[in-house]
């Protein structure tokens, strides 16, 4: 398998070249275009329970496996949000991904859901992460720009701006500042990281954008 990340950084695309018989697993809706000999198989990864857990994590619980049949093939994959993509090489390690950051993977990789910690009163949303472990190549995406921060010591990131981080760094979900700051500031929950490692951050927030759009919806009429 070869890959190229094109259209970076604003409207990035993952372009894969598969050998005959090689496969890539991708989230539903990610396929943009592919050669005609690439066959799609839709399945529930990790069985029903795993699927439901991933549904909770905000990802589609079905995944699509694309296989180049009989000859080499190519496939182009795109994330659902405008933004950047990045490849992470896993060799037995584990990464945590924000829901929505997963695009695809190649290799022997397991996907699971994990509750990240306290629920946010403000947004009513739980903070749920995808746990990705194994050996292979993982493709992630950001809403907006993708910022890589090397943490050495402690660091604070708004939970809605988290894209991915390795399990070698400790994290704790907490409210920022005092109670007033939490409820009134618009800064909901943050992750406090401790340790050493590279974390990926996105420069825009999905929930913040959804919150911005909401007032533009029509108001339901009373009967």
């Amino acid at each position, binding site marked *: 398998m070869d890959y190229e990340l094109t259209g970076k950084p604003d409207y990035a695309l993952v372009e894969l070249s598969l050998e005959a018989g090689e496969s890539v697993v991708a989230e539903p809706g990610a396929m943009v275009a592919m050669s005609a000999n690439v066959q799609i198989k839709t399945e529930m990864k990790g069985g029903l329970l795993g699927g439901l857990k991933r549904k909770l994590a905000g990802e589609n619980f079905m995944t699509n496996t694309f296989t180049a049949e009989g000859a080499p093939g190519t496939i182009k994959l795109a994330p659902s949000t405008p933004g950047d993509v990045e490849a992470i090489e896993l060799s037995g390690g584990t990464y945590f991904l924000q829901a929505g950051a997963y695009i695809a993977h190649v290799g022997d990789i397991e996907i699971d859901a994990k509750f990240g910690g306290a629920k946010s009163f403000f947004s009513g949303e739980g903070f749920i992460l995808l746990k990705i472990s194994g050996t292979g190549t993982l493709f992630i995406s950001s809403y907006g720009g993708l910022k890589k921060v090397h943490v050495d010591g402690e660091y604070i990131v708004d939970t809605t701006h988290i894209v991915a981080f390795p399990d070698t760094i400790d994290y704790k979900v907490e409210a920022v500042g005092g109670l007033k700051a939490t409820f009134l500031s618009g800064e909901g929950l943050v992750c406090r990281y401790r340790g050493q490692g590279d974390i990926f951050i996105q*420069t825009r927030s999905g929930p913040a954008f959804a919150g911005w759009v909401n007032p533009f919806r029509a108001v339901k009429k009373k009967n």
Partner: protein
Amino acid sequence: MRIEIQHRPSYAVADVHLGDGEAVISEGGAMVCMSTNVSVETSTFSRGGGGGLLKAAKRLLAGENFFLNKFTASGDGHVSLAPTLIGDIEHIQLDGGKAVIVQGSSFLAGSTGLDLDTQFAGFKGLFSGENIFWIKVTGTGDLLVNSFGGVFSVDVDGEYVVDTGHIVAYEESLEFKPQKVGGWKATLLSGEGLVCKFTGKGKLWMQTHNAPGFGQFLGAKLPPRER
């Protein structure tokens, strides 16, 4: 204070580097990430001529931000700030001379040497059902404004006409008045028949996209919400 704007022009984020005791004030919700020696303090501002906390709380329910956060570093620290919508960030330096009037939703952040007047009446108008409010920024320091899409400026000398949804900020040496624009836009889109005519001499910053326009485009495609 040192400001670096990265991921320009589409998804700009401002990395604000603070010295010991230095602070930056930003719109609520703008914090992306920060060093742990930065503390956050929230202040309530009533915008556009009062209303106080209760009215502000109503706006909160309507999904609007109206709180300003003060980020203060103890020791060298940094905070990264980003707007809600995709687009660019412009760094405007104020030297204590001309004030800059910022369209409320374009305000991202400012250094503490600036005075932010959220009561500045300016032109209070309802455009496309959107209540526009303005922040008058005076003093000396760094001001960060954000644009929906790209940001560009024009040095106005005389008269200049801008669609209201595209105004980011302007120098106080300019005055503006809403006026009717003729043609198909006024005819076809009710409530959108107003533009702004600026007069005087000064700088005007605009954005390539109209945020309320985009909101209406999306809102029309979404199911109705509860009140």
